[in-house]
């Protein structure tokens, strides 16, 4: 066997091993590297009250209440299975709205609700002009009515 071929085979084996190592690391860190808890995870994990965590999910439609002072809000975060009531005092990002993604940084209260110190908005991977979105929403409503 030529030295060149030997290096080729060695190189390919080394590269495959390195990439496999990366994938293994990804899988191993899957839980630890999660940026936020979903409501289901947060309920299952029985987190201590004073521990700061990030809670992420969708702002449930119809759950958003603004208090009279103008800066305090209450809403529910849901992942489709569990719902958690969240209160926050402060200014929210522009993209924070009902039916959209949210990541709240804060802690649980003894009552089981969540007090957020920071609110981040999370958006999905879809981009479209407003007209298309209205059409899509209209189609969805018609389908639901049928």
């Amino acid at each position, binding site marked *: 066997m030529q030295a060149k071929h030997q290096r080729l085979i060695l*190189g390919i084996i*080394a590269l495959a091993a*390195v990439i496999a190592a*990366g994938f293994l690391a990804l899988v191993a860190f899957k839980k630890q*590297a999660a*940026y936020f808890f979903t409501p289901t995870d947060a309920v299952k994990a029985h987190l201590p009250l004073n521990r700061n965590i990030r809670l992420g999910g969708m702002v449930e439609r119809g759950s958003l209440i603004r208090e009279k002072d103008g800066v305090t809000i209450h809403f529910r975060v849901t992942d489709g299975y569990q719902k958690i009531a969240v209160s926050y005092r402060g200014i929210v990002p522009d*993209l924070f709205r009902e039916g959209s993604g949210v990541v709240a940084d804060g802690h649980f209260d003894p009552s089981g609700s969540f007090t957020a110190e920071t609110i981040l908005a999370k958006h999905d991977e879809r981009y*479209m*002009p407003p007209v298309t979105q209205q059409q899509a929403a209209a189609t969805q409503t018609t389908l639901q009515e049928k």
Partner: protein
Amino acid sequence: MIRLANPHFFLSLSRKLTPWLGLAGILFSLAGIIGGLFVTPPDYLQGETVRILYIHVPTAWLAMGGWSSIALASLVQFIWRHPLAGIAAKAMALPGAIFTGLCLMTGSIWGRPTWGTWWEWDGRLTSVLVLFFLYLGYIALSRSVSNYSTTSRIPAIYALLGAVNLPIIHYSVLWWRTLHQGQSISLTHSSIDPSLLWPLPLTLIGFSCLFALMTIFRMRYLLAHAQYEARLRRMAAL
């Protein structure tokens, strides 16, 4: 391929390519940026903020494409021992680092109005920052190894090991829960509406041409530097 790998042939080809790459890079980038800033409609959710996409996404692709190319060239250098492959790998480090830096900056500027934060340590953002540091490390390493030696294999090994970060960046938004949204574009599918999508390939082609142009400039410099060093050595031996 073998003819192309001849440094003399490469030099004459690169001289002819340089103006065309520069022209195409500027024209395509301008067309894409003008289209993205003035022609496309705003996004239904983000409004006008979405327009930074036409800069951010191509820089992100080139950041990853740059390291993939460095790793590939390093593999070629490692196996076939061809000095031009080593020079190509070293030449791509600077444009790669520049585009990764641009990707991080534009992402940060985009994150502030949409997510409400300049920076968060989520999987995607952190792994791209690691890529940026990998580039800086590679540049430092390839400079330190006997002043741009064309045969040193230490940077090549580093580049191949660093390639492990590429699948991590790609899958970070699929496998981990992140603040960064999932991928919008795959080979078969795009969740960006066609009316918003079309300037993106233009800026991608434009930026790629500029990346290639920077790489060719760096390769010519490194070749000239290697010749100069060789001449100095010959003179010292006399």
